[in-house]
């Protein structure tokens, strides 16, 4: 794929060494890119490695997580090779991140104002008054009423939705080129969810930044993303633009996800959950990681791991069905099993 990309991840591997024998390969050869000014959605079940991928980009992994291979190219610069002080200059400045839990992501003992201006003060040389002015502007920008009053308040005085707005304000403090949002709405009420997503979308248009949105909710993807990477068990299994993904999904797992999603745009026969469970990180299948749950799986699938093939300009898929070696039904069309009426 040839996009003008702000972020390009190649074969990223992030492992957690539990002890001498046990290693959890949370992210195991992930590749995707975030096109400039666009929104990439990363979709997958919990444990698929999507959050770890995000934390790897900013090198915010908790012990014993460690990047063991691959490249993270940000504007062509490999972030993995950066020193810690160099990374600090990027964090909160060129790349910002917001998290899933607004209730616990703000420090309870500091005021909202201080937590926002802290980011400004680190990355910009501004006077106290300028910094305060900017803080108030940011709160206005994220739609928090009476910001002059709010800057003196503590997190406990704000609702979850308001706190997530504060988190977004912190993230935007230095006009980042890339915003990573790790399930930003999962912990919020449904009505608030829509507002926050709308806010992110608006801000993106206004500020021209790129967004990487991590979610387990395909509905969110449909509404906000331009491109999608579907992750399963530490690997990307499908990457495409959002229309193609919903209209012509190629990977059986993507189809499974779509079938388990209630849709109001089309009539569905029924919601079908995917059979089986996500494999244990200690007992990964040798072949395709989805093979044990895949309705089309053959011996080839169970024995050999497929690579991520480029099907066309806008679609990549990790599945044997689309290769010369495919040993199953040559006529199979995966998207036929979409539950559409």
């Amino acid at each position: 794929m040839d996009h003008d990309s702000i972020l390009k991840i190649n074969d990223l591997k992030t492992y957690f060494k539990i002890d001498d024998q046990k290693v959890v390969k949370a992210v195991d050869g992930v590749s995707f890119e975030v096109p400039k000014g666009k929104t990439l959605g990363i979709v997958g079940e919990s444990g698929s490695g999507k959050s770890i991928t995000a934390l790897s980009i900013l090198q915010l992994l908790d012990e014993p997580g460690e990047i063991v291979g691959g490249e993270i190219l940000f504007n062509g610069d490999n972030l993995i090779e950066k020193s810690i002080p160099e990374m600090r200059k990027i964090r909160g400045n060129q790349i910002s991140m917001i998290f899933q839990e607004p209730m616990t992501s703000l420090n309870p003992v500091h005021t909202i104002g201080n937590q926002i201006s802290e980011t400004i003060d680190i990355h910009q040389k501004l006077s106290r008054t300028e910094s305060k002015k900017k803080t108030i502007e940011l709160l206005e920008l994220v739609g928090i009423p009476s910001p002059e009053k709010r800057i003196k308040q503590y997190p406990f005085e704000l609702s979850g939705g308001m706190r997530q707005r504060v988190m977004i304000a912190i993230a935007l403090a230095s006009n980042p080129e890339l915003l990573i949002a790790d399930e930003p709405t999962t912990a919020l009420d449904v009505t608030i969810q829509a507002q926050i997503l709308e806010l992110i979308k608006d801000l993106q248009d206004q500020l021209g930044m790129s967004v990487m949105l991590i979610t387990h909710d395909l509905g969110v993807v449909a509404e906000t993303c331009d491109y999608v990477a579907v992750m399963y068990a530490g690997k990307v299994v499908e990457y495409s633009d959002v229309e193609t993904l919903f209209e012509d999904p190629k990977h059986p797992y993507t189809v499974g996800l779509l079938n388990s999603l209630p849709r109001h745009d089309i009539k569905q026969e029924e919601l079908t959950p995917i059979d089986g469970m996500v494999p244990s990180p200690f007992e990964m299948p040798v072949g395709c990681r989805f093979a044990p749950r895949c309705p089309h799986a053959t011996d080839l699938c169970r024995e050999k791991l497929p690579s991520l093939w480029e099907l066309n300009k806008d679609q990549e898929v990790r599945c044997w069905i689309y290769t010369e070696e495919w040993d199953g039904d040559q006529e199979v069309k995966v998207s036929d099993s979409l539950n559409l009426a």
Partner: protein
Amino acid sequence: MMLKFIVRRLLQLVPVLIGVTFLVFIMLHITPGDPAEVLAGEGATVETIENINERLGLNEPLHQQYLSFLSNAVQFDFGTSWRTGREVSSEIAPRFFVTLELAIYSTILSVFLGVIAGVISAVRRYSLTDVTIMLVALFGLSMPNFWLGLMLMQWFAVKLDWLPATGWGSGSQVILPVIALGTAGAAIIARMTRSSMLEIISQDYIRTARAKGVTEKVVIYRHALRNAMIPVVTVVGLQFGYLLGGAVLTETVFAINGLGRLVVDRIASRDFPVIQASILVIASLFVFVNVLVDISYRILNKRIDLD
């Protein structure tokens, strides 16, 4: 809301203080042997004993005696010493301030040392430094303060002659007793700080701070430490009480004329008014300090609690 909590917490003090005064009061009466006989000394006549009983009101019904004990105690009137005949309150007052000083200095030392050691340990978790600090802390809290006092005295006063071995008042006299008394507290606070820091470091808002691009120093001191100190505050309050109690031993080792040493001296001569008054004063102070700590904990924790 906060005011209501403070008032309620202060009201809860009343039954506890009544209980404490009652226990202290009853000490004299559950002691084997007749107090008047003890006071009169051996070979006293029946009349003498009867006189004493009359004078001290020991013939009155128990509840009457308790009420007058309580009302006198509230006015800091604890009667006269059975041994010296002096007023108890004027006998214990100067001693009390010595003990208070000793306990306060030791608390300051233990908080200072404990917090620093605990933070270093947490930041360098599982390193040699961490293991060493935690081992030292374990020894520190396993050491009797009187023995530590004896050892310090032997080295720094007797062998090296750097510091005075006994007494209280001048700056150099303060050092050894405060180290002897404060070490165990420092050890406990270090352990507490470490575990509290480790818990805070894994919180989401620490990750937020890192995501902003702040340095690790700022993460530790600005974001983690303040939160980690909240549970430590409660321990400090308890610690202050233990130090008040432990002062008995330290004062004995360093021949400091504090309240604790006074109690020990007077136990031998069964000088109950002094013993009762001293114990009552220390216990009441401890109860008050704990309420203060409770309230400050509540204020500190307000931001987290009201979620």
